[in-house]
């Protein structure tokens, strides 16, 4: 149990990389990228966690009650929202690539060559 979150984070990242490498559809690839991102969220939040400590919100509890680390939570919070925006940009690139080449298969699209 004391190494489970680190193993889960490493597992999620490895599974995401496997999905990206063996994907046959660009939209599926972007979904696997979001799995890689969730690995970092799990890692960061697990680093800040402390047993028998509450959330870092002192509205109902007086300031001074044991609370978990708020700095990593701030990092993950902005990361989630901005990560969704970057996913949107990637999907726009996928739509454009499909328009220009007619395929969404990563293994069928080759890099551009001059006079190709």
């Amino acid at each position, binding site marked *: *149990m004391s190494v*489970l*979150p680190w193993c*889960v984070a490493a*597992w*999620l990242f490895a*599974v*995401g990389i*496997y*999905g990206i490498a063996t994907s*046959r*559809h660009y*939209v*599926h690839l*972007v*979904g*696997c990228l*979001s*799995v890689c991102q*969730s*690995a970092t*969220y*799990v890692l960061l*939040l*697990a680093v800040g*966690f402390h*047993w028998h*400590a*509450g*959330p870092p*919100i002192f509205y109902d509890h007086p300031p001074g009650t044991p*609370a*978990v680390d708020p700095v990593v*939570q701030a990092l*993950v*919070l902005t990361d*989630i*929202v901005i*990560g*969704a925006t970057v*996913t*949107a940009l990637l*999907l*726009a690139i*996928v*739509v454009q690539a*499909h*328009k220009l080449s*007619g395929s*969404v298969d990563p293994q069928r699209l080759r890099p551009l060559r001059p006079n190709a």
Partner: protein
Amino acid sequence: MMIWLTGIMLVIAAAAGLLVVLSRDPKRQIFALCANGLVLSLLFFALQAPDVALSEIVVGAVVVPLLFLVALAAVAVARVRE
């Protein structure tokens, strides 16, 4: 008790991530993404992070699957038009 809850949520989150990768059809992957977002937000609740869980519910279970759906529709429309 909290130990078991956190441990179980971590294992379910790992399984949900695997499910997202193993759903090869993008239309099926959208549902897997919804489930992944929900499970992750429950894990963040268990890790005493309510702000982050709120964020993950809205983004991971609503906005990102919607983005995927609309992107797939745009790809299908472009395929029809050409």
